[in-house]
């Protein structure tokens, strides 16, 4: 253990980590009292200190193997002005058991540093952080830890009000505003164990409210709710609210991944938690959260990343955990009972070193200063590598559970974070908000298969079901671009998103077989969009939580998906159907995601009751209160340029170069300038294509199509129904005339009730394009009018 770390441990034994700033507000800053100060000390049973405190340091540094990281312009003082002290009142008592008891009041204090810099990187910083708060609390220290009498035990209870936590780069800031928080943590123990510290928090409970998350693009503002010039409230992303009941244990030891540094291990159990995102009185709630996670061998070093860039390195041995969300709901924020539920989510995960497609990945993040090169000197650059070795994600609604099993994800690249304002700076267009940039981020994910019912059910195919929710079963990509999250929705609080995303050399599966059926990993067979280039742009897309659900309104969106080869079989070597290009241009399209699925449905017939439905030949199904309904309005605009239009191109017979077909050299079929309109000749285009999709996890009727044994050797006759039966080796059997009870054990799948309608959809022209002969128009216009399609579909995974 280094001598520097010995000193750190001695400090920690007096001031436990985490509680240092909140619960021990003045001890580290104690100074000698003059006569005037002494006049403020009163009381018979202890000492009361009343202090106006301001502390400043131009630089606080930490050195690791001679490499430094620095907090610049550190300050503790009042939060109400840029300068001046904060008031502290501390009552100190020695109790009968020799414990030290501190009652404290802190009024409007700000703890701040203006930048974080690294040695050897002049002129670039990670940005500044400020933390405002008033505190009232109690802190008690007594001797004796969990491991030995040499340890220490702490109790901490406090209430925080007027809280504000902000991140600032280049004069722009995003901050949590109007934070109130109550925390109780009793019996915290601190022991020296081996070469490190062990901190055990047997129970910490609390609640919090964050009134708003605000953005400011005005450099004159600094941690204020209102704009300095206009006096108007700064725009808000919405608020947060929640409570928690946790147990946690930390181990902290000296020694980084290389030389000096820290090692951190942590075990945390979430006994209960609730989390609400609040937007103008409506809440998206994640309720009844339980779980646990273990951080194993997290090392913190000041070091260089894989490209030799100086960074604060966080390298992880492994992270595993489980998370259960008892209900994802939308409803009124303040105690309203009118809530609707999407259902429940369970997640098991393991981040660990692993090889994918022949290349090994670890879990590491290297924090560097600067952010996007054109955004200014301050920002955060994250050289990140991740390896999600395995995860199972299950979705349960109305008691029916589907498990997406064997999820893996990997990648490496740079992620930049800047708080930006609406401007063109150094030739790059920025928008108001928190800008998350992606620079040469090469990553991917894949899903092994589905399990239905429980974790031990047989692995099945069917991940294609996720396409109904717009998710590919497998995707590899090279990503550049940004998503800028602005404050303020369509009305009041919410999000405004501007985004430019570019994917190169992508491989996305439309259909994908498992990558591991128990005999080791293998190349996934499927139907693949390969050699995929995708450019997508979104302007002024708003996201709001409404009484109904999550409402997303696109201002203007355009994209080009260029699939170099649509391959069947192997994603690299499978034969190709040719090249496909899909261009989209939408203005004013919207999507609302609503909790609750189809409810009671007459499948295959018509009728509003069980009897009338069955009389019409249909099947009456009550799919319950939970599920997901997606309400889409897609307004396809008429072409305004070659890059902003709706078109579809299929190209084959391309000339080859180096064995690979060259795009643009073959024969093309082009459906050009596809657009919607209201069909009245006025040119109005407000109706678009309106689609309602209600998706439930529900029992589906699966009928055997041929006599004899099936793919898993289970015998049955043509027309027999598949009935799940855990007593059978395959997990199911075939029944010729299932009883009512047996029908309750039909296999689970996705049940989709859909309605799609449009007034008019036009294709301006359909051309055949020859590489030398040019374009020949084959069809001079297509118009479809007054279309209303209703569908009841069930999709079930098959082994």
């Amino acid at each position: 253990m280094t001598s520097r770390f010995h000193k750190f441990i001695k400090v920690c034994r007096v001031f436990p980590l985490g509680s240092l700033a909140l619960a021990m507000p003045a001890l580290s800053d104690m100074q000698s009292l003059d006569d005037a100060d002494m006049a403020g000390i009163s009381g018979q049973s202890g000492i009361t200190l009343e202090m106006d405190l301001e502390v400043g340091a131009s630089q606080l540094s930490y050195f690791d193997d001679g490499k430094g990281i620095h907090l610049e312009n550190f300050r503790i003082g009042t939060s109400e002005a840029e300068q001046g002290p904060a008031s502290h009142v501390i009552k100190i008592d020695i109790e009968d058991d020799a414990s030290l008891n501190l009652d404290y009041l802190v009024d409007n204090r700000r703890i701040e540093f203006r930048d974080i810099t690294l040695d050897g990187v002049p002129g670039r910083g990670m940005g500044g952080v400020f933390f405002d708060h008033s505190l009232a609390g109690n802190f008690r220290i007594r001797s004796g830890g969990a491991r030995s009498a040499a340890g220490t035990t702490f109790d901490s209870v406090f209430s925080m009000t007027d809280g504000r936590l902000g991140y600032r780069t280049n004069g722009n800031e995003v901050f949590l505003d109007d934070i109130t928080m109550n925390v109780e943590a009793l019996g915290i123990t601190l022991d020296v164990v081996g070469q490190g510290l062990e901190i055990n928090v047997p129970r910490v409970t609390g609640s919090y409210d964050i009134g708003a998350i605000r953005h400011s693009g005005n450099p004159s503002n600094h941690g204020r709710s209102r704009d300095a010039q206009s006096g108007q409230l700064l725009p808000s992303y919405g608020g947060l609210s929640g409570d928690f009941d946790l147990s946690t244990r930390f181990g902290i030891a000296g020694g980084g991944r290389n030389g000096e540094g820290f090692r951190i291990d942590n075990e945390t159990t979430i006994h209960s938690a609730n989390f609400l995102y609040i937007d103008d009185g409506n809440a998206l709630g994640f309720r009844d959260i339980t779980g646990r996670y273990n951080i194993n061998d997290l090392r913190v070093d000041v070091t260089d990343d894989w490209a030799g860039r100086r960074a604060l390195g966080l390298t992880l041995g492994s992270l595993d955990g489980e998370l259960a969300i008892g209900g994802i709901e939308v409803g009124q924020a303040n105690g309203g009972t009118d809530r609707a539920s999407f259902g429940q989510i369970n997640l098991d995960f393991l981040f660990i070193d692993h090889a994918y497609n022949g290349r090994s990945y670890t879990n590491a993040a290297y924090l560097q200063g600067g952010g996007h090169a054109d955004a200014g000197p301050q920002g955060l650059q994250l050289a990140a590598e991740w390896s999600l070795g395995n995860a199972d994600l299950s979705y349960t609604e109305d008691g029916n559970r589907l498990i997406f099993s064997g999820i893996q994800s990997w990648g490496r690249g740079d992620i930049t974070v800047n708080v930006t304002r609406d401007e063109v700076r150094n030739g790059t267009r920025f928008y108001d908000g928190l800008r998350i940039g992606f620079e040469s981020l090469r990553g991917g994910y894949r899903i092994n298969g589905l399990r239905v019912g429980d974790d031990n059910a047989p692995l099945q195919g069917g991940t294609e079901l996720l396409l109904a929710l717009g998710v590919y079963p497998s995707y590899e990509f090279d990503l550049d671009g940004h998503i800028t999250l602005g404050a303020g929705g369509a009305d009041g609080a919410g999000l405004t998103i501007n985004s430019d995303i570019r994917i190169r050399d992508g491989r996305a599966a439309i259909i994908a077989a498992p990558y591991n059926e128990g005999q080791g990993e293998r190349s996934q067979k499927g139907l693949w969009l390969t050699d995929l280039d995708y450019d997508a742009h979104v302007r002024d897309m708003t996201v709001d939580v409404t009484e109904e659900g999550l409402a997303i309104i696109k201002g203007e969106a355009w994209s080009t998906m260029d699939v170099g080869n649509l391959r069947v079989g192997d994603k690299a070597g499978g034969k190709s159907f040719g090249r496909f290009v899909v261009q989209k241009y939408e203005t004013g399209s919207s999507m609302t995601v609503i909790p609750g699925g189809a409810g009671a449905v007459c499948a295959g017939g018509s009728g509003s009751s069980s009897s009338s439905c069955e009389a019409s030949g249909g099947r009456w199904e009550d799919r319950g209160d939970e599920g997901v309904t997606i309400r889409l309005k897609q307004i396809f605009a008429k072409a305004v340029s070659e890059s902003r239009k709706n078109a579809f191109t299929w190209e084959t017979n391309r000339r080859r170069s180096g064995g690979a077909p060259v795009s643009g050299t073959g024969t093309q079929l082009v459906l050009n300038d596809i657009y919607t309109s209201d069909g009245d000749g006025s040119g109005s285009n407000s109706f678009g294509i309106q689609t309602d999709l209600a998706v439930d996890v529900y029992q589906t009727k699966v009928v055997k199509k041929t006599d004899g044994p099936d793919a898993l050797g289970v015998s049955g006759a043509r027309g027999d129904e598949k009935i799940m039966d855990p007593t059978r080796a395959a997990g199911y059997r075939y029944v010729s005339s299932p009883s009512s009870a047996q029908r309750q054990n039909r296999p689970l799948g996705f049940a989709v009730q859909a309605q799609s309608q449009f007034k008019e959809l036009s294709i301006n022209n359909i051309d055949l394009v020859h590489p030398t002969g040019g374009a020949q128009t084959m069809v001079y216009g297509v118009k479809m009018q007054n279309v209303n399609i209703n569908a009841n579909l069930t999709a079930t995974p098959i082994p």
Partner: protein
Amino acid sequence: MMWIRIFSVVLGFIGLVPAGAMAELDRLTDEALSDVSGQGGIYLSGDISINENGGPIDNSYYGSCEDANKKCGARFAYRLKEDGGWMVLDDIRGNFAFEGLTLRVRSVDSGFGGDGQEFDSDVVEIGLPNIVRFNDVRFKIAASNEARPTAPNFRQTDILSVQMQGDVVMEGNMLVFPKGNP
């Protein structure tokens, strides 16, 4: 709509398969498939109706299905000459249902009377439902001088009406695979 998109992507390939290649392929039984690995997929059932209760336009031409003076079906028009007339499928309505349409990717490297070994490639397999039930599916084939029936001087000549009712038996698998220079 999403499922319709998926169907449209897959079914779009059907017309692209060389007829000669398809003719030599026979249906595999479930048992024959039992030694084929990596064949997970999905099984689809359902019913789809088009303009069963009319469409979204209400004007002088389109309206309620209860109104004998108006049409409540969908309309599809296209033209092959720049200034020519329009071929029209008009008043499209109906309902069809199917059970057991399957979709998966699999390798064909045996069977088919020995052709499978020579073929030795991956295919998209669309397992046809045994029965597709058509219920009152109807449309008219017509010729028109305008795409929109509400245009001034609109004239249309109905050529014939089609109505389909009953079951269509569709057995076996449709195998879709690339052929030729992509």
